[in-house]
C-alpha cells in the first residue's frame, strides 16, 4: 500500500463579495502550474499528471475545483439561484486562488472552458502568469446542442451530459479512462454542466481580445485533439492564428479531455508544452 503524492486542502477566498470554500490539490515542487478542469468536471481530470514524477519533478501542479464542482460547495443560497458561470466570475475566481495561495506567476493550464478562460487571462491579466497552455481551447463556438437538455426535471442531466460528451472522447482512449472521465460528468450537480456551457457557448468576448495577447511576454501554446467535436482542430487553429506568436500542436489520437481520457497519450504533449513555458524566476520560491 502506498499513498499518492497528491495532497488536498481547502482554501476560502472571496468572489463577488462572498466567501467561496475551494478545494485545492497539489503535487510536485518547483515552478507552479495552475491547472483548470473542464465544464461539468473537477480536479480529478488532472490526477494522472499530478501522479507523474516526470511532470512533478520540476513543476508544482495545483488544481482546484471551481465552486459548484467536485468538493467545492456552491455558495450559500444556491438553492434559489440559477447557476450560470460568467467570464467575470470565472476570472475573479482564478485570480483569487492565485492570490490566496500566494502563487508567483504560475503557468496556467486549462482545458476546454479552462482553456477559454486561460486565453481571457492571457489577454486581460497576463502579469499574473508566466505562460499559458490552452488545451481544447478556442475563441468561441456556439453550442451544437440545446444546453437546456442538461437540466430538466424529467431526465438525469449527468447521464445525458456524459452520453453527449462521450462523442468527444477518442476511440484510442483506454476503456477504463473513458469511463472514469464520463463518471465525473455523471456526478455533476444539477444544472452545473448547463451553467458552465452557458459561459462556454454564449460568451464571445474573447474574440476581440485575442489581439491583446503578447506572447513575447507570456507564451501561449494550444493543444487540441483530433477527435474533439466541440473544439475541433480547425477551431483551435483559427484561434492560434489570431494570436501572434502562439504555437499549436494537434494530438492525432486524442479528444476533448486528453489529460483524463488518455493520460499516456497526452503526457508527451504536456511535457512539450511545459518545456515551452519560461522557467521559474530565481526569486520565486
Amino acid at each position, binding site marked *: 500500500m502506498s499513498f499518492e503524492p497528491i495532497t488536498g486542502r481547502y482554501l476560502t477566498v472571496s468572489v463577488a463579495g462572498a466567501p467561496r470554500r475551494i478545494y485545492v490539490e497539489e503535487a510536485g515542487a518547483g515552478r507552479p502550474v495552475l491547472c483548470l478542469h473542464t465544464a461539468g468536471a473537477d480536479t480529478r481530470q488532472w490526477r494522472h499528471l499530478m501522479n507523474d514524477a516526470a511532470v512533478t519533478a520540476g513543476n508544482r501542479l495545483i488544481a482546484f475545483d471551481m465552486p459548484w464542482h467536485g468538493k467545492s460547495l456552491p455558495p450559500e443560497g444556491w438553492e434559489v439561484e440559477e447557476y450560470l458561470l460568467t467570464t467575470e466570475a470565472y476570472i475573479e475566481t482564478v485570480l483569487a486562488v492565485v492570490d490566496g495561495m500566494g502563487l508567483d506567476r504560475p503557468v496556467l493550464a486549462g482545458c476546454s472552458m479552462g482553456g477559454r478562460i486561460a486565453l481571457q487571462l492571457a489577454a486581460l491579466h497576463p502579469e499574473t502568469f508566466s505562460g499559458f497552455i490552452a488545451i481544447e481551447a478556442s475563441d468561441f463556438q456556439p453550442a*451544437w*446542442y*440545446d444546453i437546456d*437538455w442538461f437540466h430538466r426535471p*424529467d*431526465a438525469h442531466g449527468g*447521464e*445525458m451530459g*456524459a*452520453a*453527449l460528451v*462521450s*462523442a468527444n472522447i*477518442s*476511440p*484510442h482512449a483506454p*476503456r477504463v479512462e*473513458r*469511463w472514469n472521465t464520463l463518471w465525473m460528468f455523471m456526478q455533476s450537480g444539477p444544472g452545473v454542466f448547463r451553467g458552465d456551457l452557458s459561459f462556454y457557448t454564449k460568451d464571445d468576448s474573447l474574440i476581440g481580445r485575442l489581439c491583446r495577447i503578447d506572447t513575447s511576454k507570456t507564451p501561449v501554446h494550444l493543444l487540441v485533439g*483530433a*477527435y474533439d*467535436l466541440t473544439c*475541433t482542430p480547425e477551431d483551435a487553429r483559427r484561434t492560434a492564428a489570431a494570436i501572434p506568436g502562439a504555437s499549436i500542436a494537434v494530438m492525432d489520437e486524442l479528444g476533448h479531455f486528453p489529460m483524463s481520457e488518455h493520460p499516456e497519450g497526452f503526457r508527451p504533449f504536456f511535457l512539450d508544452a511545459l518545456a515551452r513555458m519560461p522557467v521559474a524566476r530565481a526569486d520565486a520560491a
Partner: protein
Amino acid sequence: MEAAAAAWHEEGDSPQDPEALVLTTFQEVQESLNATPHLLRLGRLFSETVLVEVDGQEIYLSFDQGRIASVTEGPSRKTPWRFALRTDGAALEEFWRARPEPGFHDIFGLVKIGRGRIDGDILCLVKNLRFFKEVMGLARMDEGKAA
C-alpha cells in the same frame, strides 16, 4: 459481431448486395443486444421505433423495453418513428471500425462532418443517448478495445 458486420470490413470488392448487408448487420445487432445484459438494463424504459436510413435504405428498429423486437426494412409510410439517424454506407462502415477516423467515431460526429443527419424527437434520443449509441456500436469491430 458475426459475419455480416465483419463483411463491412473485408478487403477487395464491395459487397454484391449492400442493402442486404445493412439489413443483416442490424439483425445481428438485434441478436447481440439480447446477449448484452447491461444494455438491456439501460434500455428497459425504451420502447420506441427508430428509423435508420443508410444510402436511402430505410430500416426500422422497433425497441420494446430495451430489446429490438423487430428489424423491418422500409420504406413504410405506416410506421411512425420517434427519431431517425440517416447516413451513408461508407460512413457507417468507418463508424463500425475499431478505431474510426475523427468524426466517424460517434453519431453526432457523423452529423458534424456532414455524413449524417438526426431527425425527429431529439430529446428522446438524448434521454436515451448512452443506450442508443452503445446499441449502434454493437456492430463495431473489436469492441473490447474500442468502447
